[in-house]
């Protein structure tokens, strides 16, 4: 399968990697005691490892290029991969949804509360991903500060609960609306920025919100955070921890369903079309009478709305929050979910969230290599499937003759 030339090339590459990793992996100095440790074994690992990996890497790249004919082609609606066909035919689609829903319902009965707990987290990220997908995937606005709205939601609940004893259900809409308001407030001045300028400004906003929470101790209790936040009530019944975990899990399942339903509607609406068009060509959009600012604001604040709602759930679930949970990295993960899943595709985002959130949990077996592997997997997934796991499969409109005589 591999020609001699390929092997030779890999050999060269592995030598290159030995050179590359030498000062980091082989040498380890102790500058105090002035000793140097030479870990020659690592040379062997690198040599062998990079040889094999480079062969694999190029083999898969080659495969990808061969296949690109089949699915990279964006324009063609027919002849797509199996999964696309499955998802496009309503009968199959409903079947898949049915199976998924069934699994989701029985899941807590089959697994431990740990599994349920991380699945809840994953579902929260599904919703976050779907929310950000409105902003990034549909409207094409690169938002690197999405976590700010998540924080707004979480702190709304934490503070309202702490000061006024307001319950989960009361704050849920409040948190969402507050976040949406923030979305409008922040979006208004910056939405005329293009592409990456918008990205950095949103990143800045995300950081500003976190820093304010961190420093304004009188308001947010600063870095030590707020603890003992109430869990969601269940008709006034006190739930045990186990029960509470399962209860929140089902809540999240419900939220996910509602979100999918609503996001689907958004996507197939006049507004959704305008977002997609805006993503494709702003100038043409304006020339077609679309109010750029208003439409973008709608996307921005709707995205924020979901983040806010999930923020409330987050606070209720962990019962403790502090600003450390709302760093840029969090935004990066949510963005990765959207891109990895396949921008603009609902199913893709769901799969992306499940993969990215469950992956680190299941990578726990790798212990300290966990984040190393996570980084590497992100890179590989992008390299080998740049359009995401499931590239956008938008329902496209078709004209069905109505009110007309069949002549």
């Amino acid at each position, binding site marked *: 399968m591999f020609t001699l030339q390929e092997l030779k090339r890999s050999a060269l590459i592995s030598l290159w990697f030995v050179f590359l990793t030498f000062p*980091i992996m082989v040498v*380890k100095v102790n500058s105090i005691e002035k000793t140097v440790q030479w870990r020659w074994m690592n040379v062997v690992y690198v040599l062998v490892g990079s040889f094999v990996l480079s062969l694999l890497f190029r083999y898969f790249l080659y495969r990808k290029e061969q296949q690109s004919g089949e699915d990279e082609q964006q324009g063609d609606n027919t002849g797509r991969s199996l999964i696309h066909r499955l998802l496009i035919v309503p009968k199959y689609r409903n079947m898949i949804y049915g199976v998924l829903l069934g699994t989701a319902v029985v899941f807590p009965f089959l697994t431990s509360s740990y599994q349920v707990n991380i699945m809840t987290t994953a579902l929260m990220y599904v919703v976050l991903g779907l929310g950000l997908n409105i902003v990034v995937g549909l409207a094409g606005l690169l938002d690197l500060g999405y976590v700010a709205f998540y924080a707004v939601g979480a702190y709304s609940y934490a503070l309202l609960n702490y000061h006024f004893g307001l319950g989960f259900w009361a704050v849920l809409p409040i948190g969402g609306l507050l976040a949406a308001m923030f979305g409008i407030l922040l979006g208004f001045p910056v939405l005329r920025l293009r592409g990456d300028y918008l990205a950095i400004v949103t990143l800045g906003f995300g950081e500003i919100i976190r820093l304010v929470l961190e420093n304004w101790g009188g308001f947010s209790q600063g870095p030590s955070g707020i603890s003992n936040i109430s869990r969601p009530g269940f008709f006034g019944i006190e739930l045990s921890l186990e029960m509470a975990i399962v209860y929140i899990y089902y809540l999240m399942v419900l939220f996910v369903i509602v979100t999918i339903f609503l996001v689907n509607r958004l996507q197939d609406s006049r507004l959704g079309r305008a977002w997609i068009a805006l993503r494709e060509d702003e100038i043409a959009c304006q020339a077609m009478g679309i109010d750029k600012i208003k439409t973008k604001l709608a996307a921005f604040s709707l995205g924020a709305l979901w983040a806010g709602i999930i923020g409330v759930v987050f606070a209720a679930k962990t019962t403790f929050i502090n600003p450390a949970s709302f760093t840029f990295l969090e935004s990066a993960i949510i963005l990765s979910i959207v891109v990895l899943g396949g921008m603009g595709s609902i199913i893709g985002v769901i799969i992306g969230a499940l993969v990215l959130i469950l992956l680190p949990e299941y990578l726990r077996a790798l212990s300290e290599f966990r984040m190393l592997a996570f*980084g590497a997997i992100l*890179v590989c997934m992008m390299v080998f499937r740049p359009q995401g796991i499931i590239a956008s499969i938008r329902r496209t409109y078709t004209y069905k003759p109505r009110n007309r005589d069949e002549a």
Partner: protein
Amino acid sequence: MDYFIELFFSGLSRGAIYALIALGYTMVYGIIGLINFAHGEIYMIGAFTSFTVATILTILGLPLLAIIVLTGIAAVVWSASYGYTIEKIAYKPLRHAPRLSALISAIGMSMFLQNYVLLAQTSDFLPFPTLIPDFAFMEPIAHIVGSTDLVILITTTVSMIFLMVLIKYTRIGKAMRATAQDRTMAMLVGINVNRVISATFVIGSSMAAIGGLLIASHIGQINFYIGFLAGIKAFTAAVLGGIGSIPGAVLGSVVLGLTESFATGYVSSDYEDVFAFSLLVLILIFKPSGLLGKADTQKV
């Protein structure tokens, strides 16, 4: 007034530090339109390589000047190699992919490199040897501008001028500009686009390596995580100055450094980053393509 001057120079040298990293950021962004989140990690690797090499050379008992020069060379060589390799692995296969995919790839790369150094070296903070001695002639103003500050300021200025000349007047610079604006057409006028992109990564990474060496010796400590915040700040600075523009990166860095310094000095360092980011937002609202960035001229 003294206080003002002290703060001014504090801000200036902080700006110069950001600039060393921002220059590479802006170059890479300029050419492939990618926010290279792994750039901060290249800087970190430059610092680690410097650390290793400098320590070994110190053990060997070489004179200080030789140590500085050799360490600098080693840092540049390895950082540049990392930059080159990263581009080949994580970005080149994504040339024709949606831009966000490359962004995620960059974020993944950044995580990978952090943890790679964490595992291969250590999670602890390591003392970085003082490579730049206190110059005697600086003593009278040492409480305002230190020797390291001076070296950093000079290096930043020289790098900026070097890069500006490179981009404006040399063949490779011309090729870079062409590649940045229209890759297909750049190929059609005979530019080897792959080589130009690699060269950009190599040059940008070399800047980061020099930054790693100088900044680490300024701060006196390194660990695997130093690239993250520095990277974000440098990126902010690059955008502030108008991303893609070399003098813009330096100006943006200095403005950012000064803002942070004055915010700390006259308000509170609790909110220095809040000031920094607010300034960014304000400037971008009024100058949507940064201080020195070219407005995006789109003819319809």
